[in-house]
């Protein structure tokens, strides 16, 4: 089995606020991330596909195809957007690194035609990232 990884970067704004909690609780839990004017990050996304190379092409998945999928599913949705207001898939969720990574996993998994989605790693900054990995039952990834 071979794993291939492609990396993209996008920039977006967000803030953390749960309407079910009081203003004071929001401030206590989310700290400066609760600033209602929002703030932004340069996100880096690593997408890993696992599979066997096609003997005819030597490729697990044509990287051009993966690049197009990432453009369509991730860049067009998220780049230079406000995650609280402009991304319907995140409606009702706090746009944390965990929730954004899980959303990207759900968007990408059905679109990968050759190989399987193995890992989505989303960096909010160089020192913070969330990993989504495949369940053992689905074949490739590790389970928790």
């Amino acid at each position, binding site marked *: 089995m071979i794993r291939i990884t492609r990396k993209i970067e996008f920039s977006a704004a967000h803030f953390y606020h749960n309407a079910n909690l009081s203003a004071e609780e929001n401030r206590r839990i989310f700290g400066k991330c609760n600033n209602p004017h929002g703030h932004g990050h340069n996100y880096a996304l690593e997408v890993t596909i696992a599979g066997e190379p096609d003997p005819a092409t030597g490729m697990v998945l044509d990287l051009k195809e993966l690049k197009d999928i990432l453009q369509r599913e991730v860049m067009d949705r998220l780049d230079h957007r406000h995650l609280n207001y402009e991304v319907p898939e995140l409606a009702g969720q706090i746009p944390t690194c965990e929730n954004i990574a*899980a959303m990207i996993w759900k968007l990408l998994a059905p679109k990968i035609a050759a190989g399987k989605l193995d890992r989505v790693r989303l960096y909010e900054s160089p020192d*913070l990232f969330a990993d989504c990995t495949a369940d053992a039952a689905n074949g490739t990834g590790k389970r928790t």
Partner: protein
Amino acid sequence: MNISLTRRYRFSASHRLHTPKLSEEENRRIYGKCSNPYGHGHNYVVEVTLTGPVDPETGMIANLAELDPFVQREVIEPFDYKFLNEEVPEFRAQVATTENLCQEIFRRLKSFPAARLERVRIEETSKNSFEIVDEREEAAK
């Protein structure tokens, strides 16, 4: 799909790889320049990986407002700008290799109450890294 959260921290410390159980010659043979008597130092990077359910109320596996001070108290304060062999009691009885450092940091962090510690990975330099994964995690693979 499983989800985990990883945070990177840094500390700088000195150490010397040397054990009194071996002769000076054997120490030099095994540890080479790492055994130089006055010690040497590294800028260590520690990656801490947590797993657990994403709390729907916060969207988080763990709140960094809780994790950061915990790691600061348990690891950064006791290790940063220290000579590990002398100033961290656990390394008086064992060699301060980064393997042992991984195990010691894992031991110190596993009591974090808000999520499960899955992995500790240490970059001793940009070329060397060491990691320890929760045994339950390994068994489940």
